[in-house]
């Protein structure tokens, strides 16, 4: 019956389409003439979103995952070496590989799309604070499955942080957990499983990108909630707001609670790298915004060039410059912080708050202004508009 109606409408439309088109053309040419004076320049070519996706995938995302993966592989072999011979020297070596991998992770954490989204990459690798009591429980029983969603706060880099830095005060004491402890095997196994899990997840995500997801991603230029541009824009902003602004700075600084929460600092047991992790994350965010290659200084199509292109149509504020300026301000504020955020929070939390405020301004610029300019669909809102 519905088909019948559409048929009727179609007939009627066809009958009068010619007149309609004619009128539309007339109206169009009138409007075109009348608007020439106040539109600054006609845009000759359109923005190539496929090129932006290709730049993201080929020059940023895949190189960043490759680099991260090689760090993780090194970390895994250092773990094997340490487990075979648990010495203070091997502990320190493993720790430095852990740190390098953790810093490198800041460059891939924002790309929660495709395989990474499927395996909940960020949740598997970096949920903190880590749950020490349950980790000890897991080690004691030897019974754990990291694929279970309930175990996200007992694995990843924060759990390794505890295993490598938090078991005791001194390195010599830490090593005893893997040697003299009655359950030394349990500790070794847990350490090994942590390292292996990160490594296999990283490998899984990287091979998905190099295996074929890259082409799917680049081809998905559609303008909808499921289009790659919309999705990654949402992911990027979500990451920046929740994981970077709130996770690294806001939550430990007590923004969302009645008091400060220094125990929620990233790399809580290592203590002196929380600032380095934040700065790396900010750099990664700026570089992605500007479409800068992971290996090198060349830039390609990006949020910045997309905004600049749209601004030739809109002729409004130079949003990309405002965002870049604010990134610089936020980075300067973050630079003033103590290398150890626990100390910073306990001695002078106002600096943490100031740093948060600058990151917050970036969230507004990106979540309100940039999203409006792109007209991307906000996640999962698919109700009708009018």
């Amino acid at each position, binding site marked *: *019956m519905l088909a*019948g*109606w559409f048929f*009727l*409408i179609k007939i*009627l*439309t066809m*009958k*009068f*389409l010619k*007149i*309609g088109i004619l*009128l*539309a053309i007339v*109206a*169009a040419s009138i*409007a*075109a003439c*009348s*608007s020439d004076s*106040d*539109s600054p320049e*006609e*845009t000759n070519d*359109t*923005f190539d*979103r496929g090129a932006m996706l290709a730049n993201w995938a080929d020059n940023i995302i895949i190189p960043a995952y490759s680099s991260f993966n090689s760090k993780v592989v090194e970390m895994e072999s250092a773990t094997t070496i340490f487990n075979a011979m648990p010495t203070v020297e091997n502990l320190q070596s493993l720790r430095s590989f852990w740190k390098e991998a953790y810093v490198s992770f800041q460059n891939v954490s924002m790309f929660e799309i495709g395989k990474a989204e499927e395996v909940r990459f960020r949740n598997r690798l970096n949920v903190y604070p880590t749950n020490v009591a349950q980790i000890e429980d897991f080690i004691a029983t030897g019974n754990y499955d990291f694929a279970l969603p309930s175990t996200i706060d007992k694995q990843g880099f924060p759990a390794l942080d505890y295993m490598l830095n938090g078991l005791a005060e001194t390195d010599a004491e830490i090593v005893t957990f893997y040697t003299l402890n009655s359950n030394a095997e349990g500790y070794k196994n847990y350490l090994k499983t942590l390292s292996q899990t990160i490594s296999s997840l990283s490998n899984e995500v990287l091979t998905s990108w190099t295996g074929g997801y890259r082409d799917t991603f680049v081809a998905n*230029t559609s*303008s909808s909630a499921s289009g790659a541009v919309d999705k990654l824009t949402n992911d990027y902003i979500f990451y920046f707001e929740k994981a970077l602004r709130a996770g690294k700075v806001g939550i430990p600084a*007590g*923004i*969302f*609670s*009645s*008091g400060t929460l220094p125990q929620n600092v990233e790399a809580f047991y290592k203590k002196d790298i929380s600032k380095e992790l934040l700065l790396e994350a900010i750099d990664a965010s700026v570089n992605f915004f500007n479409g800068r290659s992971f290996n090198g200084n060349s830039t390609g199509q990006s949020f910045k060039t997309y905004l600049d292109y*749209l601004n030739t*149509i*809109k002729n*409004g*504020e130079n949003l990309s410059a*405002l965002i870049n300026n604010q990134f610089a301000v936020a980075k300067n504020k973050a630079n003033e912080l103590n290398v150890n955020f626990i100390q910073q929070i306990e001695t002078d939390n106002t600096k943490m708050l100031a740093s948060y405020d600058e990151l917050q301004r970036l*969230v*507004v*610029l990106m*979540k*309100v*202004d940039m999203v*409006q*300019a*792109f*007209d991307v669909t*906000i*996640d*999962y*809102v*698919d*109700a*009708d*508009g*009018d």
Partner: protein
Amino acid sequence: MLAAVQKYFKKDTQAAPLAVFRVLFGFMMFLSIVRFWMNGWIEKLYIQPKFFFSYYGFEWVKPIGDYTYLLFIICGIAALFVALGYKYRIAIIVFFLSFTYIELMDKTTYLNHYYFISCVGFLMIFLPANAYFSIDAYKNPNKAFQLVPQWTIDSIKLMLGIVYFYAGLAKLNSDWLFKAMPLKIWLPSKYDLPFLGDLMQQSWVHYTFSWSGALYDLAIPFLLLYKRTRWFAFALVVIFHVMTRILFPIGMFPYIMIVSTLIFFGTGFHRKIIRFISKLLRIDYSKMVALTQTKKYRFKRNIALPILAVFFVFQLVFPWRYLAYPNELFWTEEGYRFSWRVMLMEKAGYAQFKIKNTETGEQFLVDNTDFLTPFQEKQMSTQPDFILQYAHFLGEHFEAQGHENIAVYAESYVALNGRLSQPYVDPNVDLMKQRESFRRKDWILPFNDTIKGL
């Protein structure tokens, strides 16, 4: 003059157009309800959220848990009964009440076209739309009429005319006409449309769409009224609404408007439609309408006309209430809804709420995702009455959790039609001390720009 008015109200016309309108409207409504359900929106919009935004004065209207599904079933069945013309009067009353209840449950989902449907539903309660080509008329010859008062059909035309014309008036502002906003934001993002994608990037296209859209809305009621331009006008209606369907996530509305405008056509045309429907459904057309002969429908008690007179005065006046508020309408949205302001602005916002203990000075920020769905958060962050209601909800929530001396502050930013975002509500005002009312909200910060026009 009075004589002419009296004469007009005594004039009769064929009931066929009204019957066709009833069938199509009821059927479209039934489809809309089914589509809403199939999309999973009942669950997503009315079951999952923990909190619902109420209309001022309708705080008692809330989703009723799993019974909400029942509400939609009732509404859908009522729509079907309306289409069939079976127990019409009860069906249309049930439809109006259930549909309006659904719309009032959460203003997050406010759409002008839902309001339009409530208006038409209300109007139809008073019209003899089951007089012809209906089960009621078929079963009971006393209820079958071939003629109905002319004004009953004209009232639907008037309703449609108001919707279009007021929507056109609302477009007469500097953002729409001279900046081609918000189309300048919306159209370029449709880059992936076949053939049209590249055109959507062109400035002249944005201006053309803005101007022709405004002209269309203002002119279409008149073009539909006059016989000579009617077919041309209908072609425009189809082109315009199909275009909006392609460009925007607009749901069933274009189809509803296309079939609604058929009411402007003459009886002969509607007879053909009825024959067509009869053939489609294999009903015996002649038997279906045989009983009607040439009886005239007469209203028993004369309450319909006065009620509808009040209704239309309300329709004509209510959209102008924004004039009573001093600030920019698009910014404060005081008097924005229920005024046929359709697709008029692009607003994006961000609102962060601070809960403060006024005695100890202790404070913390709220994570909105703990309480709101992404859709609710998006709507809340740009509309002051949402912000106020949510602030009160938060205050009461944390009070119940044992927090004391609670003050709630909002730090918020809004970007309107491509302007740079700027602070929206006064961050120093304790929203717990503010009450919702029709009075102007003086805690909204100034817009710092002007949009000229109606």
